[in-house]
């Protein structure tokens, strides 16, 4: 213990009483937290800028690129759900493909067999995936560590096997072409087959998902979840029953995986058994880790990197798997915080350089701002 303890005197004890005459001198808990949250405003601004700027994408990039971006976003939302669960609860799920696939198939089934408005059809699909996540969460959430990863893997595979046997509904590996009908958000849903038409919705879903998770992480509940992740037993002895909050977190993550599943169906009108296979979860997990799970920006960023990589390597013998594997290995060894961590380090190096040449602001200022916004978003 440092000198501070030996200096503890009756004076400190006086301070221990609820002092109503003077505010307690020195740093306070609330003050420290406020200080730590300074960046929140910049992050919110960064998000807003990104959200609005992203809407303009169809005017900037080509149709093909837009199509890729759309794929990246569907994958990004799934990665976001897995990454957020990992970050917030420390639990690694290999079973999210089940929720993704169940939502997709649920939507397809309802669209074919019931005459519901398209909005309700999609909601029903998402509800199916969410319900599955709730059930899985209820039975698995107490299981610790790697056992949880394997348990979710086993459940995911059970769903996959079941999907294979329900061939009349799923059409197996050949897949199912789904004709959605009706009007969604003022447009005929068929229009969403066109990436330009679909873009505002796709982009909006991603941005809203990021915002919701960002807010949840910072809420009282989110901080409690992080505390449970850090030390579940201590949290129980701080008077918090830890079961339901974790079930809820798993379910929230399942909602997002379901949203990704429905989004996939709306934009591609196609789903196959592959959606349920564990590699769908595995790939989304890798993407999330490469992007960085510590921020809500990481998983979508990882998905974009993945799609770019896959597309870039498609011409040269399609070695994206090997490259992806190597990237993952390098990331785990060198930058466990993922690509976002690399960006942060780069930003830190940049600011220190700017600080050295403080005399010459000029052209470096705009870079500073955009990077700042991006980094703020990354936190």
């Amino acid at each position, binding site marked *: 213990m440092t000198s501070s303890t030996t200096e503890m005197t009756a004076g400190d004890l006086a301070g221990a009483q609820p002092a109503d005459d003077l505010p307690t001198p020195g740093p306070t808990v609330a003050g420290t937290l406020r200080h730590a949250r300074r960046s929140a405003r910049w992050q919110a601004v960064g998000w807003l800028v990104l959200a609005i700027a992203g809407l303009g994408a169809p005017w900037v990039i080509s149709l093909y690129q837009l199509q890729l971006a759309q794929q990246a976003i569907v994958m990004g939302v799934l990665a976001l759900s897995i990454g957020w669960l990992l970050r917030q609860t420390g639990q690694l799920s290999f079973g999210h493909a089940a929720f993704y696939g169940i939502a997709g198939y649920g939507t397809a089934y309802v669209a074919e067999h019931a005459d519901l408005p398209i909005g309700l059809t999609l909601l029903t699909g998402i509800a199916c995936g969410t319900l599955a996540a709730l059930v899985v969460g209820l039975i698995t959430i107490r299981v610790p560590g790697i056992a949880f990863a394997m*348990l979710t893997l086993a*459940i995911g595979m059970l769903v996959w096997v*079941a999907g294979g046997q329900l061939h009349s509904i799923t059409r197996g590996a050949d897949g199912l072409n789904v004709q959605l009908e009706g009007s969604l958000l003022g447009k005929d849903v068929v229009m969403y087959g066109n990436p330009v038409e679909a873009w505002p919705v796709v982009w909006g879903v991603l941005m809203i998902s990021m915002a919701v998770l960002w807010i949840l992480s910072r809420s009282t509940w989110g901080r409690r979840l992080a505390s449970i992740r850090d030390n579940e037993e201590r949290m129980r002895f701080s008077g918090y029953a830890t079961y339901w909050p974790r079930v809820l977190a798993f379910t929230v993550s399942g909602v997002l995986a379901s949203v990704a599943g429905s989004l996939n169906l709306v934009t591609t009108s196609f789903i196959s058994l592959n959606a349920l296979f564990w590699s769908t979860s595995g790939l989304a997990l890798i993407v999330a880790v490469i992007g960085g799970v510590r921020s809500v920006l990481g998983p979508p960023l990882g998905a974009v990197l993945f799609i770019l990589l896959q597309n870039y390597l498609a011409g040269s013998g399609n070695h994206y798997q090997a490259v992806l*594997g190597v*990237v993952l290995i390098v990331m785990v*060894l060198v930058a466990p915080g993922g690509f976002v961590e690399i960006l942060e380090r780069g930003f830190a190096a940049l600011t220190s350089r700017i600080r050295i040449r403080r005399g010459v602001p000029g052209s470096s200022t705009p870079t500073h701002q955009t990077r700042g916004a991006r980094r703020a978003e990354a936190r």
Partner: protein
Amino acid sequence: MFVQVLNGLAFGVLLLVLSSGLALIFGLRGVVNFAHGAIYMLAAYVALSISDRTSFWIALLTVPILLALAGLLIDRYGLRFLVGRTPLDMVLLTFGITFVVADVVQTVWGTEARTIDPPAVLAGTTDLGFATYPTYRLFVIAIGLLVCAGLMAWLKLSRTGLFVRASGDDRVTAGAMGVNVDRVSATVVALGFGLAGLAGVLAGPYLTLSPAMGTEILITTFIVVVVGGLGSIGGPMIAALLIGLVNALATVQAPTLAAYVPYLLMLVVLLLRPQGIAGRRTAL
């Protein structure tokens, strides 16, 4: 019926060789090696090339050694850096290896299914009195059981085996007692990879080689290790034979349900005694 039992036994022995490697690595490094299936697959393909050019026997000898060396390298330049990080980082690392190996296999050997011809001595069938049975499968059963008996003896009797058990129990204490944990770990990872390699070679003339073979068997191996208890060596051995048998019998008796059986088994075991797999060391 006897043939079914023997089929189950042959598959069980294969699982046994694979899962003891997985269990060893888990016990010592605390790593659930997701690359285990990929290593097995790589071994089968390398054995294909070697036995095409020379003979199956040379493949049987060299491939496990080659993969053991690969294991040494992965331990030295990968896993060792991750000691003290969460077990999930190690999972992700081995997951990355899976992707690389899958790509290598597809690039070098293509995606169509292949088979290895068993050596002439083992090609036919043997009359067991009550049934005739492919000789090669009998050979797989014999070799697998021999290797596992050897492994058990090594763990029980040798000095290194004692160290393996000691540092598997408690890294810190073992380290303090003068066990060179890093060296024991390297030995064990190499051994685990070597065993996966052996399983791959053995599987070559018996099962079909395809780029999906690694993933398929990986999940079954996980199930074996989970059911048998991660961190123990004897448990998975019994579980491997059991699951091999159940698998073979269920496929014949109730083919629709057979596909569910292993996953349900894993589910039930994990829910009822997660400590069987999680043990003391894996809890996050």
